[in-house]
C-alpha cells in the first residue's frame, strides 16, 4: 500500500511547487490590480480594469456596451483606444459602460447578444471582423443601436439600418506624416522613405497611400519602398522588413502593422534613422527617433458615436477625418520641429479641402 500513497505525496509536492510559482506570479498581478483600483475607473488611462463604472453616475441611465476583438484591452492600439473613448464618455457624458473582451471568434455573437439584451442603448463592435456576427445580432435586436469600427456599417448594401459604421480616412493621417518625411529627406539629402504594412487591407493601404502622396508632394524625387509583414503581432517580422528597407537606403520608416510594427520602429531606432508610428501617438517609444505618428483616433470615434446618440443622432455611417479630428498626426519629434508650422499649414489646407490625399498607392 505504500506505493499507493506515493503518487498523492508527489502530486502534493508538485502542487506545492505550482503554488509556489503561482505565489511568485501573483505578486505582480496584485500590483496591477491595485494600480487600476487606485487609478480610479473613469478618466484614468488604466488599461486593465474594465469595471462598469457606476460610481457617482449622473445620467447613468444611458448604457453603452463595447465588445473588443481578440487582441484584448492591452493591445496598445485599437481595442485600447476604443476603451479610452468609452472611459472618456463615462467621465464626460455620464454614461455607464460595459466592456466584453472576445477570446476567439466564437465569442462575437454571444458577447454582442449579451450586451444587446442587457439594455444598452448603444453596442459598439471593435473591428471589421465582427461585421457578419453584428449583422446577425442587429437584425434580431432592431431597437438597439449598434456601431462598428472600421466598417461601412449600415451604409453598405443589405445591412441592418441600426448599425452605424465608424470609418476613418486614414489617408488624411498618412499625408501630413508623409509631407513631413519629404521635408526631412530633402533637408538631409536622403533619397528614400519606406512603409511596413501588416496586410494589404484598406485600413493599412489608405495610410500608406496618403503617406506616399505626402512624401512626393514635398520631395518629388524621393524613392518609396513598401512591404507587408502579413502579421500584426510578431515584431521580428516587421523588424526584418524594416532592416531590409534601411539597408536599401530608407531613412524614414512608417509602420502600419500594429504591434508587429513596433519591430519596424525599433529597427529604425537601432540604425539612428527616423520612424513614424501609427494609430496612437507612439512618440513615447523613442522621443528622438520617432518623427511623428499617423493617428487614427478610435477613441474620438467611439466618443463621438456615443455623444451623437445621446443627443438623438444616429447615422448609418460616421466618417472620421481630419476635419472633425478623427485622424491626425501625433507629437513631432526633434528631427522635425523646424517644420511644425509648415505641417500645420498643410493640415489647414486639408481641412479647407484644398488638398485631398489619394486613396490608392503610388508604389505597391
Amino acid at each position, binding site marked *: 500500500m505504500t*506505493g499507493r500513497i506515493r503518487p498523492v505525496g508527489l*502530486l502534493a509536492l508538485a502542487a506545492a511547487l505550482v503554488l509556489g510559482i503561482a505565489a511568485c506570479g501573483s505578486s505582480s498581478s496584485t500590483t496591477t490590480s491595485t494600480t487600476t483600483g487606485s487609478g480610479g475607473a473613469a478618466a484614468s488611462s488604466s488599461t486593465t480594469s474594465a469595471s462598469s463604472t457606476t460610481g457617482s453616475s449622473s445620467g447613468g441611465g444611458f448604457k453603452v456596451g463595447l465588445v473588443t476583438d481578440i487582441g484584448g484591452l492591452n493591445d496598445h492600439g485599437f481595442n485600447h483606444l476604443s476603451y479610452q473613448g468609452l472611459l472618456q464618455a463615462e467621465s464626460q457624458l455620464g454614461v455607464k459602460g460595459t466592456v466584453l*473582451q472576445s477570446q476567439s471568434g466564437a465569442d462575437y455573437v454571444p458577447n454582442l447578444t449579451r450586451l444587446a439584451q442587457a439594455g444598452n442603448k448603444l453596442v459598439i463592435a471593435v473591428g471589421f*471582423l465582427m461585421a457578419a456576427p453584428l449583422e*446577425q445580432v442587429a437584425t434580431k435586436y432592431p431597437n438597439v443601436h449598434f456601431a462598428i469600427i472600421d466598417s461601412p456599417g449600415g451604409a453598405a448594401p443589405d445591412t441592418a439600418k441600426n448599425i452605424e459604421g465608424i470609418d476613418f480616412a486614414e489617408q488624411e493621417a498618412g499625408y501630413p506624416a508623409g509631407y513631413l518625411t519629404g521635408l526631412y529627406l530633402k533637408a538631409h539629402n536622403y533619397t528614400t522613405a519606406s512603409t511596413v504594412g501588416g496586410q494589404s487591407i484598406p485600413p493599412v493601404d489608405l495610410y500608406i497611400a496618403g503617406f506616399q502622396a505626402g512624401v512626393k508632394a514635398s520631395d518629388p524625387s524621393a524613392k518609396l519602398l513598401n512591404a507587408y509583414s*502579413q502579421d500584426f503581432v510578431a515584431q521580428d517580422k516587421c523588424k526584418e522588413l524594416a532592416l531590409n528597407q534601411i539597408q536599401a537606403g530608407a531613412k524614414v520608416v512608417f509602420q502600419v502593422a500594429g504591434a508587429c510594427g513596433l519591430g519596424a520602429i525599433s529597427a529604425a531606432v537601432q540604425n539612428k534613422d527616423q520612424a513614424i508610428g501609427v494609430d496612437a501617438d507612439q512618440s513615447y517609444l523613442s522621443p528622438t527617433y520617432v518623427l511623428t505618428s499617423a493617428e487614427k483616433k478610435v477613441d474620438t470615434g467611439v466618443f463621438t458615436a456615443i455623444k451623437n446618440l445621446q443627443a438623438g443622432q444616429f447615422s448609418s455611417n460616421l466618417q472620421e477625418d481630419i476635419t472633425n479630428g478623427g485622424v491626425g498626426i501625433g507629437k513631432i519629434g526633434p528631427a522635425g520641429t523646424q517644420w511644425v508650422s509648415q505641417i500645420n499649414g498643410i493640415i489647414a489646407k486639408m481641412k479647407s479641402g484644398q488638398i485631398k490625399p489619394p486613396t490608392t498607392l503610388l508604389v505597391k
Partner: protein
Amino acid sequence: MSLLEDELQSEAEEAKGAAALSPASLTAFRRGISGITVPILTTVIAFIAGGLIVLATGHNPLSTYSSIFNGTGLNWLFPWVSGAERATAAGNLQQTLLNATPLILVGLAVAFAFRAGMFNIGGQGQYTVGWIVAVWVGSSFHGMPSLLHIAFAIVAAAAAGGAWAGIAGVLKATTGANEVISTIMLNWIAIWVGVYCFQLGGPLHNPHMPSTPVSSNVVSGAKLPVIWGSLQGLDVGIFISLALAVVFGLVINRTRLGYEARTVGFNPEAADYAGMNVGRTWIRVMVICGAFAGVAASLDMLGWKFNLFTNDILVSQIGFYGIAVALLGRNTAGGTVAAALLWGALLTGTSSRNFNLSIDPTLVQYLTFMIEGIIVLLVSTDVITLRLLKGGRRIGLTFRRRRPDDATATEAGAK
C-alpha cells in the same frame, strides 16, 4: 489491455531500457496505473492553484468559481434556476457545447497518433485545410440538396485534413522523417495557403467584398441545423463529434487497424517482426487523425462560423488545444470527450460576459490560461510521478548513481 500488448511492452522496455520508451507505451503505462484518478487530481489541483491566485489578487475564489460555473451554463441543469437566469444559462450551455464540439475531434486527432506512438502537432494545419475546403464547398454549389451539401462539405474537409496529415505519415514511412517536425512545418504551409486563398484577389476571396480579406459565406442550405437556441445556438455538430468519438473507441479497441496501431505504438520493431506493415500503419493512422481535425473544422464552419477571414487562420489555436485535451483525456475516447467538455466549459465560463464586473475581466481571462497551463504542466509531468510510483526501476538509472539505496526502496515499495 491484452496479454500480448503487455508482453510487447515489457519486451520493448527490457530490450531498449528507459530511454527508448515510446509515447504509446507511456500512455498505456499511465492508463494502466492511474485510470482516471490522476487526470481528476490534476484538474482539481489546477483549480486550487488558480483559486489561490485569485485569492492573492484580493478576490474571493469561491465566488469567482461559482461565477465560472454559472458561466459555463451548467446551472441550466438545476431545476430551480428559472426565468431570465435560465435563459442565460441555456445560452451559455449552448456555447460550452459548441466549444467542445471541435475540441473533441482535434483531441482525437492527437490521441490516435499518440496511441500509435506518434506525436501529431499538426492538428492546427489539418484543421486549417479542413476550414478552407469546408468554406469553399459550403459557399459553392448553390442549390444542392441541403443534406447532401452538408455531407459533401464534411467529407471533403475530412479528406483534405486526412490528406494533409497523410503527407507527414508518408514522409515518416518512406524516409523516416520525424512527424513532429513535418507536422509543424505542414501547419505553417496550411496557414499560408489559407492566407493566400482568401487575401484580396486570392483564388477563394469573396468577390463581393473587394476590400476585406474574407471568404464567401456558407450558403444557407449548407448550414448545420440548429437544435437549441437562436443566435449561434447549438447545432447538430455535437452529435457528429460524439459519434466519431465512439467510432474512435471502436476502431482503436475492436479493429485490426486499431490493434496494429497500438502494437506499432508500443514497439515498431516488434510489430514489424510480428509481420505488421509498420509504415502503412503510420500512414493510415495519420490520415485518420487528419480526417478528425478536418471534420472539426467543417463543423465549426457549417455550424456557426460561415466565413473565413485570413485573420481567423492566423490567430486560431484550436489544434494546439487538441494536444492538451488528448493529454488530459489519456488518449482514450471517453477521456477525450470529458477533457474537451471541461476545456469548452472553461472557455465559456471564463469569458468576460459571464462575470459580474467586480472581478477584473483581464484577470479572469488570464485565469483561464493559468488553469489550462497548470493542467498541461501537471498532466505532462505526471509521467514522472507515475514512474516513481510503479516504475521506479525505469528511471532508477538516474537515481541509482546518486542514491542506489533509495532506488531499490522505490522499487520495493512499488511492489
